[in-house]
């Protein structure tokens, strides 16, 4: 019997939405209060799995950005920068605990708003966000131990702009180290996924943070630009596309602003013929189909040693056939909804490009829901190094497969990209692992595993994938002057 196309006959197991509370409209969070600006400009945040409107979000004007930066400055000059590290840390600990307490609510809203499977928001996004806050909370009163022979001090007001793929987690990645080091924050979530950041603002309010320590303004790219270019912002932290990262780096060139950028990637996931193939297949699937491939460090280029290519691809296709694509709130779902119509169009364009360039196209034949934005797990084999699908970041569930014969060849091919965020290596041989991991021009290298994250583990890119690290001791220096 072949199970290749058989359906796992699982009953629906949707997570309930009864216990979550969402307002019809969200204002901006400035100086400890939610405010609804007079201009009344709003946009809708929809559930990408159904198209249903979840809430209306404020489209901030320069006025709100102005107020938010002023509030952050006042909070910095006032209580926050003078508060002892131990007390600052306790605020962050408190916030971490509250996120844990309300983890189910956060997970459900994250899946509703962003389309990611509840299994991921429940087991990855929300627990990691809480862990990140908890980890940096502990640094707040230990900064003097982190940098030998240096005296660390806060920078001031941090302007932070985050993407839509891990909305709450990215907010935690940005806010936790900034506050632990004594800075104050103006944060803008991505326009399609503002909800969990605004829910986090509710917790910040509830936790009793001094007003203005964290301010959250919502809106589109121009709001982010207004924050980045505001003259009273001392530090810029951006996670998003390389294209926008370059614009930011250029726009602040004439200033003394500190900057960290966490940008795009086109990671090589490399499988040698001595790898445990079934484990590698799991890693490949996790590498590219995790979070619908909306992952900057996704293993989107698969390099397979020639001798095992056919066997591996057959197993991979079989495994892809078992992936359940559908309702993000269903606990059995493996691949959720594409985040937005715009992103779906981008992915579909790349799939067309891949076909036109002559790569061999394969997609699973699973059913897709009728409403919302969906893309089946997709595979291209016979991909050439020059193909656009092997060079450009697609940010979707599309894997480009190439082959190689020798170690030297695959190192060259894998590094032949302007990006350098992450890489994966699958082999049973230890010395080969460390040869490969040391040769990869990438900030994070996974050996016989993929797409793992931890607050203690520095994350960030080489080359055009950005600069600076988030996580671990190394993540502190981005928010400190010496």
């Amino acid at each position, binding site marked *: 019997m072949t199970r290749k196309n058989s359906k796992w006959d699982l009953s629906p197991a949707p997570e309930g939405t009864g216990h979550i509370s969402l307002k019809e409209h969200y204002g901006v969070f400035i100086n400890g209060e939610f405010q609804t600006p007079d201009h009344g400009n709003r946009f809708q945040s929809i559930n990408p799995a159904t198209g249903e409107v979840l809430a209306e979000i404020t489209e901030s004007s320069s006025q709100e950005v102005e107020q938010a930066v002023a509030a952050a400055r006042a909070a910095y000059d006032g209580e926050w920068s003078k508060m002892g590290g131990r007390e600052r840390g306790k605020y962050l600990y408190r916030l971490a605990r509250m996120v844990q307490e309300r983890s189910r609510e956060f997970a459900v809203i994250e899946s509703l708003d962003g389309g990611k499977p509840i299994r991921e928001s429940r087991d990855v996004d929300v627990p990691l966000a809480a*862990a990140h806050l908890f980890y940096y909370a502990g640094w707040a009163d230990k900064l003097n131990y982190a940098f*030998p*022979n*240096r005296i660390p001090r806060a920078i001031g007001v941090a302007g932070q702009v985050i993407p839509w793929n891990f909305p709450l987690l990215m907010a935690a990645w940005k806010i936790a180290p900034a506050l632990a080091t004594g800075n104050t924050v103006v944060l803008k979530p991505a326009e399609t996924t503002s909800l969990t950041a605004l829910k986090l603002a509710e917790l910040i309010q509830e936790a009793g943070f001094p007003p203005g320590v964290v301010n959250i303004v919502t809106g589109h790219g121009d709001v982010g630009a207004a924050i980045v270019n505001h003259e009273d912002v001392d530090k810029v932290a951006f996670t998003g596309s*390389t294209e926008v*990262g*370059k*614009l930011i*780096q*250029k726009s602040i*060139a*004439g200033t003394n602003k500190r900057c960290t*950028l966490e*940008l795009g990637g086109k990671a090589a996931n490399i499988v040698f013929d001595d790898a445990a193939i079934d484990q590698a297949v799991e890693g490949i699937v996790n590498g590219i189909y995790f979070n619908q491939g909306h992952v900057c460090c996704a293993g989107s280029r698969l390099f397979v040693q020639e001798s095992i290519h056919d066997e591996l691809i057959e197993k991979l296709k079989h495994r892809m056939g078992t992936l359940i694509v559908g309702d993000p709130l269903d606990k059995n779902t493996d691949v959720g909804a594409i985040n937005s119509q715009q992103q779906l169009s981008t992915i579909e364009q790349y799939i067309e490009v891949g076909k036109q360039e002559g790569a061999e196209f394969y997609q699973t034949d699973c059913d897709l829901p009728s409403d919302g934005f969906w893309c089946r797990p997709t595979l291209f084999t016979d991909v050439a190094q020059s193909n656009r699908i092997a060079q450009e970041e697609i940010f979707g569930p599309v894997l480009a497969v190439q082959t190689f014969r020798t170690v030297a060849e695959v190192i060259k091919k894998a590094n032949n990209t*302007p990006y350098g965020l992450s890489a994966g290596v699958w082999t049973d041989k230890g010395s080969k*692992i460390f040869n490969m*991991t*040391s040769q990869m021009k*990438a*900030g*994070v*290298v*996974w*050996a*016989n*595993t993929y797409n*793992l994250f*931890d607050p*203690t*583990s*520095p*994350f*960030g890119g*080489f*080359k*055009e*994938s*950005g*600069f600076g*690290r988030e996580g*671990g*001791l*190394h993540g502190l220096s981005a928010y400190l002057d*010496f």
Partner: protein
Amino acid sequence: MEESNKNSSKSERLEVLKTYKMYIDGKFPRTESARYYQPMVNGLSLGNVCLASRKDVRNAVVAARSAQAAWARRTAYNRAQILYRIGEMLEGRSQQFLDELVRQGVDKETAEKQVAESIDRLIYYAGWCDKYQQLFSSVNPVASSHFNFSTLEPVGVVFTVASRTCPLLGLVSLIAPVIASGNTCVVLASETCPLSAITFAEVLATSDVPGGVVNILTGRIEELTEHFSRHLDVNAIACDRLDSEVNTKIKEFAAENIKRVKTYHQDWSTDAAASPYFIQDFCEVKTTWHPIEQITESGASY
């Protein structure tokens, strides 16, 4: 000199003038553009100095890129010994550097201090080559069964705009930390006082530093800014206190391939002008995850 000539019965000896050339890939070429300029000190010309062109920048970057992987693969101990060797060679030629600094308008006392400090700085960074990694690396206690560690790697090719006013010590203070970790560099020497940089190239050439690891150009910053800061094979730029207009330009162009730009406003004669943090400035953090097999829950026991 005059005195001894007078006393000598031989006719006055004609001094042999030195041709100041650039240093690319371990060789001393003239600029491909065949142009020159004459830096003036107190109304006197320092000589005909190469005016580097865009092509020279490109050649130097090619040399630096070609040399980088092999330089980074050397053991830290070996790089340490080579940096130490540069210090040794500089010590042996300190009189020449002293004379040249004075010729470039530095007073004798300051020149003496700067030559001595330059030698000591090389020895200082030689010592760091096999130590900074332990200082800045970490083993990260992740909440899963993985061995997870972060180490520093050189960023690659670093374009270095050397101090205008501190022609030897400023130069050494940037080159040493940049190459200590396995980077290679292209250095633009002080426009007004380029002699020390060129003579320093002669020290490098006799110090077991592989060709291409340090490349030294002479010329005008205004003319070359766009060429090095837009060059897609340059990973980082180190600048010593340029005027803000040039700085902004460099940083704007650098954004085209997300170059890391570090600007220093250091008095290079102070202790604060030397630290392992200058090495760290031109390194990338790489984090590696490796699974740890869990066979038994009992753990190791004694």
